[in-house]
């Protein structure tokens, strides 16, 4: 290990140290909530600075196992930002529900470490370990309200189905290892390119590639089944249909701030791994997997949006809409071009701001014990709490994709990339779905401003951390909708880096 290696994983080291510190503070101080929160903010901000410094100095650390490139740094910044917003929005919630803050923050920080590792890993072993760290942390966070049966039930469902999907992913990795002789993404890519170019190519870089070059026939069918199995595992993690079954139950049962976290950070991390594995590792085989993405994208959009139409619970509705949004991201992914990847990254950032904002309002209005989660509880909200209702309206309009908000430009970039990639039908179906989606978001908006309250819903004033989180979310949503250029430049830079790696 060299000093440069340590610098490359400095954000992860900082986060791990902060997580351990938070737990120790929780153990030694009687009233540890504020101190633990303070240490968490400090760790997250230090890690954000560390990543920001790395952004323009890409390095391959640990002999090429870990790539701190602009693609990885883009995602790590996104995870840290999400973690910061979630920590800000959950301090009041934890106090209200009487949950132990130290362990909650520590698990959040460790989960962020796992996601950062996933986004920067060039080695499938590392992707797998990062995935497991973030998954295990998520399973526990989902079941964090242990006294509530729905919470532990959601945790159990998430755990069993998550492990099931992980086993599929691993089986795919094993067969991929069998067909290419390597678990390193760049080497897998080299093995494919060598095999596809034929034996006349120059000297292969990896010994296993030599085996492939002399083989009479490339194990195409084995690669096919390996791709399919890895696809199943990753599609589960991004909650794409038809692997979305767990999403509504888990999102409903989890504590609301955790739902906000789950719907943005681990999903973005899974997309990061998805992009790196399929664009870098399996880029040479894009013809074999892009039609799979096409089908899954269409299914996710339709199942998500049609499912959301039927929901009475706001968390379940947002869960179904999360499935649909995963579908939009997959539309951009299907193009497998630099354009498409940039659109994916932009959409994930936009979605993070608007969705965390929306869940923050849901958390606040839910009240003690999360009692007020039905859509009818939102009736007349516009008259009673104009400020909160206004904020919620901005987030919902952004989720619909109304111009001047982040959601609009996110969808615009996605569909533009799809048109450039000659995916006309996919674009048509995507736009159609945006229309369906408008219906259920508008239903909430209409009931907020045009109907009388069905029952009395108490609401405490917002506290400082929540105000800050809400302000950041609103500013982010509007900024991304009005001035997309800065973030889009970063996304394009990251996407081009990914293309070069091939």
């Amino acid at each position, binding site marked *: *290990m060299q000093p440069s*290696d340590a610098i490359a*994983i400095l954000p*992860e080291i900082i986060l*791990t140290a902060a*997580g*351990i510190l938070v*737990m120790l503070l929780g153990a030694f101080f009687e009233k540890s909530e504020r101190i633990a929160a303070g240490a968490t903010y400090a760790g997250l901000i230090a890690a954000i600075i560390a990543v920001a410094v790395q952004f323009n100095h890409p390095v391959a*650390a*640990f*002999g090429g*196992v*870990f790539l701190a490139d602009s693609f990885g740094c883009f995602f790590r910044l996104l995870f840290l930002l999400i973690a910061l917003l979630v920590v800000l929005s959950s301090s009041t919630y934890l106090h209200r529900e009487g949950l*132990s803050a130290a*362990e909650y923050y*520590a*698990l959040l920080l*460790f*989960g962020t*470490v*796992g996601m950062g*590792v996933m986004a920067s890993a060039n*080695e499938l*072993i*590392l992707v797998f*370990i*990062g995935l*497991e*760290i973030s998954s*295990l*942390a998520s*399973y*526990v966070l989902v*079941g*964090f309200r*242990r006294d509530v049966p729905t919470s*532990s039930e959601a*945790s159990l469902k998430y755990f069993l189905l998550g492990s099931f999907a992980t086993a599929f992913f691993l089986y795919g990795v094993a067969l991929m290892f069998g*067909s290419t*002789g390597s678990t390193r993404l760049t080497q897998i890519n080299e093995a494919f390119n060598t095999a596809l170019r034929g034996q006349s190519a120059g000297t292969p870089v990896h*010994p*296993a590639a*030599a*085996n*492939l070059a*002399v*083989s*009479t*026939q*490339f*194990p*195409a*069918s*084995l690669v*096919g*089944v390996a791709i399919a199995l890895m696809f199943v595992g990753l599609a589960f993690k991004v909650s794409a249909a038809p692997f979305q079954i767990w999403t509504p139950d888990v999102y409903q049962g989890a504590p609301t701030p955790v739902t906000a976290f789950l719907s943005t950070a681990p999903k973005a991390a899974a997309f990061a791994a998805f992009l790196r594995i399929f664009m870098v590792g399996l880029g040479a085989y894009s013809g074999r997997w892009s039609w799979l993405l096409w089908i899954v994208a269409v299914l996710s959009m339709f199942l998500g949006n049609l499912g959301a139409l039927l929901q009475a619970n706001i968390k379940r509705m947002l869960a179904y809409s999360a499935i649909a949004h995963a579908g939009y991201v997959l539309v951009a992914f299907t193009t497998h071009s630099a354009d498409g990847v940039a659109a994916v990254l932009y959409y994930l950032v936009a979605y993070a701001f608007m969705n965390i904002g929306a869940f923050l309002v849901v958390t606040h209005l839910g009240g003690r014990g999360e009692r007020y989660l039905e859509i009818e509880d939102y009736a007349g909200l516009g008259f009673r709490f104009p400020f909160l209702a206004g904020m919620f309206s901005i987030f919902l309009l952004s989720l619909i994709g109304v111009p001047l908000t982040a959601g609009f430009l996110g969808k615009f970039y996605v569909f533009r990339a799809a048109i450039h990639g000659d995916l006309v039908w996919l674009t048509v179906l995507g736009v159609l779905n945006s229309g369906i989606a408008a219906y259920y978001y508008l239903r909430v908006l209409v009931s907020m401003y045009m109907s009388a309250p069905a029952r009395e819903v108490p609401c405490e004033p917002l506290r400082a951390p929540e105000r800050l989180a809400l302000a950041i979310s609103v500013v982010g949503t509007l900024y991304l909708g009005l001035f997309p250029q800065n973030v889009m430049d970063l996304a394009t830079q990251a996407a081009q880096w990914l293309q070069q790696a091939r």
Partner: protein
Amino acid sequence: MNVLPGFFFYLLSAIILGGAILTITRRNAVHSAIWLIVTLLGVAGIYLNQHAEFLAAVQVLVYIGGIMVLFLFVIMLVNLDEAAKQRQFNHQWTIAVGCALALMAELAYFIVKGRESFRFGDTGTGTLNPDAAVIEFLKSCRDIPGLGPGGFLQPNTELIACALYRDYLLPFEIASVLLLVAIVGAVVMAKKEI
């Protein structure tokens, strides 16, 4: 001479598959766990057969000695009598059997179709992962016959150690975070009062 490897393969396969079938069909969870241990032992046998001695030892120590004991402990902790009386399979078992058969057919199709493709390494021309420097280092430690490129992944434990602490140092270190998460998570979920 040539009969023996085949004999061991079929014997171990029978143990593994028999154990697996009994694991998923026994009504009593304790019986399932015991049969799972039989399967795991069979898998450890295959590891030995495939020159993965270190993994065979870890399989017995960690899987059987650690994980399965944890399973048995939890089964003892929760109420079993009631579970044993209930119906064993859920309502959707017909769908489940259909799915399993479909998956089996799919995997069998691909493996049979891809059978010829395994020819590429039949001659065993692959090389050891550790490079010449590692081999020199190992040779300097003690006298190891037959060590070198194209060898049989021997001495297994030494080579794994070299790979773990050299090429895979980062995954090895990050795994400690994973274990920390597991400890914290298990305590958070199972403890009465935090």
